[in-house]
């Protein structure tokens, strides 16, 4: 077991949590992410292999699907992100590559992204200050990628009071600042 300590995207050893006027913004570092892109002509085969490996049916565009703590969401034509708890899945990319074989190209994306969970009744009031998405109309399980305070981010609607924002890890502090500032401005 290696002896290097990880730090979070915001640079701490513990995940950052902020509460602003009843809305919590939580940094979530404990997730592994791998990108899965179907190889040419292998979309069906990839679907079958994923079903076999994870028991999950590949989601339609803008949608997500999950089972046993693992989530798959659509990111582009024949492209998906797979997200799993990092504790048991640190080498998720390798595991998936083995399972999916020649049906897909798998790439580790874990530390490409910072995830912030935003929870509270005021979610949409805050998001309408940050990005174009009509979060009030978003259906549960939808994931859309857009520009959020000038950073390209995925926004996942879990419920109307629970969203996850996945943004470029290097920009974590700016994204966090944007979320907190918008919450202070829009709420309370």
């Amino acid at each position: 077991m290696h002896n290097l300590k990880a730090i979070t995207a915001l640079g701490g050893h513990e995940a950052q949590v902020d509460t602003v006027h009843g809305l919590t913004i939580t940094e979530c570092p404990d997730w592994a992410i791998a990108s899965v892109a179907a190889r040419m002509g292998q979309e069906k085969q990839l679907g079958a292999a994923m079903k076999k490996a994870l028991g999950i049916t590949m989601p339609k565009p803008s949608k997500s699907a999950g089972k046993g703590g693992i989530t798959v969401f659509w990111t582009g034509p024949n492209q998906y992100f797979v997200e799993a708890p990092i504790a048991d899945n640190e080498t998720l990319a390798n595991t998936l590559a083995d399972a999916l074989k020649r049906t897909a190209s798998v790439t580790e994306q874990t530390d490409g992204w910072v995830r912030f969970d935003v929870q509270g009744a005021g979610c949409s009031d805050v998001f309408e200050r940050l990005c174009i998405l009509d979060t009030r109309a978003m259906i549960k399980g939808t994931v859309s990628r857009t520009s959020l305070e000038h950073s390209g981010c995925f926004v996942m609607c879990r419920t109307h009071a629970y969203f996850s924002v996945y943004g470029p890890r290097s920009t974590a502090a700016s994204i966090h600042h944007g979320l907190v500032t918008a919450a202070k401005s829009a709420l309370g």
Partner: protein
Amino acid sequence: MTQINRLTGGLIDHSKPLNFSFDGKSYQGYAGDTLASALLANGVRLMGRSFKYHRPRGPLTAGSEEPNAIVELRTGARQEPNTRATTAELFDELIATSQNRWPSLQFDAMAINDRFSNFLTAGFYYKTFMWPAAFWEKVYEPIIRKAAGLGSLSMQDDPDAYDKGFLHCDLLIIGAGPAGLASALTAGRAGANVILADEDYACGGRLNAETFTLDDTDASVWIAATLAELASLPNVRVMTRTTVIGAFDHGIYGAVERVSDHLAIPAPDKPRQILWRIYTKRTVLCAGAIERPIAFENNDRPGIMLASAIRSYANRWAATPAREVAIFTNNDDGHRTAADLTAKGVAISAIIDTRANAPGSTQVEVLAGAQVVNSLGRLGVKQLTVQLADGSMRHVHCEALGVSGGWNPNVHISSHQRGRPEWNTKIAAFIPGKNGPDGLSAAGAAMGVFSTAGALESGMNSTISALQDIGISTKPIKLPKAEDVPVNLQPFWHVKAGKGRAWLDQQNDVTVKDVKLAHRENFRAVEHLKRYTTLGMATDQGKTSNMGGLAIMAELAGKSIPEVGTTIFRPPYTPVAMGALGGRAVGKNFHPTRKTPSHKWAEEQGAVFVEVGNWLRAQWFPKAGETHWRQSVDREVIATRKSVGICDVTTLGKIDVQGADAATYLNRIYCNGFAKLAVGKTRYGLMLREDGIVMDDGTAARLAEGHFVVTTTTANAVSVYRHMEFCRQCLWPDLDVQLISTTESWAQYAVAGPNARKLLQKIVDPEFDISNEAFPFMGCGAITICGGLRARLFRISFSGELAFEIAVPTRYGDALMRRMMDAGKEFDVVPYGTEALGVMRIEKGHATGNELNGTATALNLGMGRMVSKAKDSIGSTLSERTGLNEPDALMQVGLKPVDPSEPVVAGSHLMNKTGDVNAKTDQGYITSAAYSPTLGSSIGLGFLKDGGNRKGEIIRAVNPLKNQEVLLEVVSMHFFDPEGERLRA
């Protein structure tokens, strides 16, 4: 402090007095006042001086179309010029100052301009200030600069924040007067998602200013009930203090919400304003109408206002501009002002009605068939000269005059996107045309339907229609009983009698004479009329003056008004603060900041950072005692070349390329060969643009048969990825290749220097042999370090030293840096920043963005032979064009000063040792330069004509901007270790 012109009633709160000052004098007003209404109530009619002639002016209107009462609000950092007093909400301790006058509003020395008006007519600046030519820079320009401009800036940072936001709706309703409120009720009850926006702080529109009843009760009752119902509907969003500023493509509208303008200071964390983008399926424009004046000689004196404005001040704000008011009108609406003022105890000296058949009155004297031909009273109107129907003259006393020339439907927003309004003869005004923005319809006064009953009904009907269009079935609603009186207008645009100036555009000081001059000088097309005279070009966009100008031009040209046409309407509807357009992207937040994995550690070391695009990179790491950056940089270079240094290179783009056709694909993207690159090997790659110019360079490492990691320069990471996706999806869509960016996912460090391997051997797990034999130069592979952490190792070198780049998942980047610095202690390891990185790559002649400058080809870089002619790749065909392959083409060379104490200055141009210095004799230019501690002098890289054949030649580097000339020797660009022995150690 008595408010001598305060009336009773109105929508202000007489129980909440507010203190304010104007031009240093203290006054009192009430909650609900605007600055203008409060000043009028205090007997102040003089509020400004006009732009060109500095004529004394007061408010013409009671709204955002105001041309004259433009003041500076607040002091200190929040000082704000060019605010309309007619819309500024009064708050306690508000401080306002008049503009454009010196030394005071009452006595303005610049009013001398008014005496030279004959020389300052339209377009005067095209005819003056020409002679003598020398006077322009020294005399005319400085004078004009001092005299020009409106208002002054605080020169301090704006302390407030501005938000941006995004809203979505089925129906956007612009304006919350009777039409807009009826529309909102109709749509709200139908369940549509509705946004109702009004620029005013109170909904109700014209109803707030009139004494109309709805269902035989005060209009305020229906308004309150309506607003209460709208507030209860979760699908309706009412936005007051929100101006819709423009109709943009495809149902996108811009709106500015003034969240805190009416407060002394915004609440903590709250924005001053929000700039909203509204995405709507349908829009109903209920923006009402704006009254138009009638031009006559000296019609611009303080106290001369639009009749409806005087009515608004009396009914809504309980203020009157004077105790004796006259009316000048061509329609019945003007009479309404007289009636409402009379009811409030204000005397009406006369109603001067241009119509021969003007209605009579039992309360007030009506002069039918009469015209106002002049006015007296420099600092405020005192008396009118009236020409009666029989031609005789009469004086009428008054200290305010309400002028009503009719109403112009507010077509502005319906005419964005080049829509043209159409003429409606019945009301002698323009109404929204048929080619307005898609999905927008107009209702109420904005559509030329002027009665309240008409507005309510058309608001409802337009809404039913609009919603049905988008599949929302909507029922009619029960509308309150309302007045439906006709206006009975007889068009009358200007008084022809009188030799003096009659004002059209009061803000830009454009008169009827100016329009006549434009016509005489053949600027007759309406867009020429506008620009030659500047009519309609001020901050009010001619809302109260365009019509008058068109009418007069029509007369002169012998055309009808619609034949003359209107000028193009453009957003914003009213001025928008630059702060609102900037939003939160100010100062440090101008763009997102990207931090490298070692950022925290570097901060602890006291590193100096540099912005590289959005990234912050350590530029150098000063040690205690170092006072100049050269000390740090020189030290870092020397120490790295002597032993070992570490540099964070995470920022360079990394693109993961996989698939059965990955090698074939890369072979077409790069101009040099990649099809046969062995697994476990890395190769330098040169990427051309399709026109043969170099786009970017980097490396591609083959980790497996169908798996490459491509690197790009930091600056081009995004554009290269975009280009690669274009090639993949559009040019070769059937190649089996998949791409994804991994720039962020992996922390990457360069470990360089004679002891680089030894340092790494202390952290690389023992099962991985990184000796020179097992891991030669340009090798690559997946390894583990520190007891099993997955990592990637690339033996590539930008510094020219024995070097590796080691990558780990980013979350371990901080720990890895600390571990390597610890492991490297025995080797005196140093961290090095971008400056030292730059010095070392120049010493090796490696190109970067300075050389890849968008004009350089592979040939210019000395890499002409790298462009394979045996295969197709992006840019290879056009790279062979004759023009790019001239015999004396620029070639990259090394440059060394003949006198080692002299500097090499990047950007200097290269000239022959002797001869003229000009564009014709230009031999090239210096692209990169640095002091080389390794060589003991400045060195540089540059492009030199036929440089490949000029080694040893002495040339000049010239910088005419600073009168610099330095003698340089042309040398090999590989200044240091040209054989690359260190690389391969």
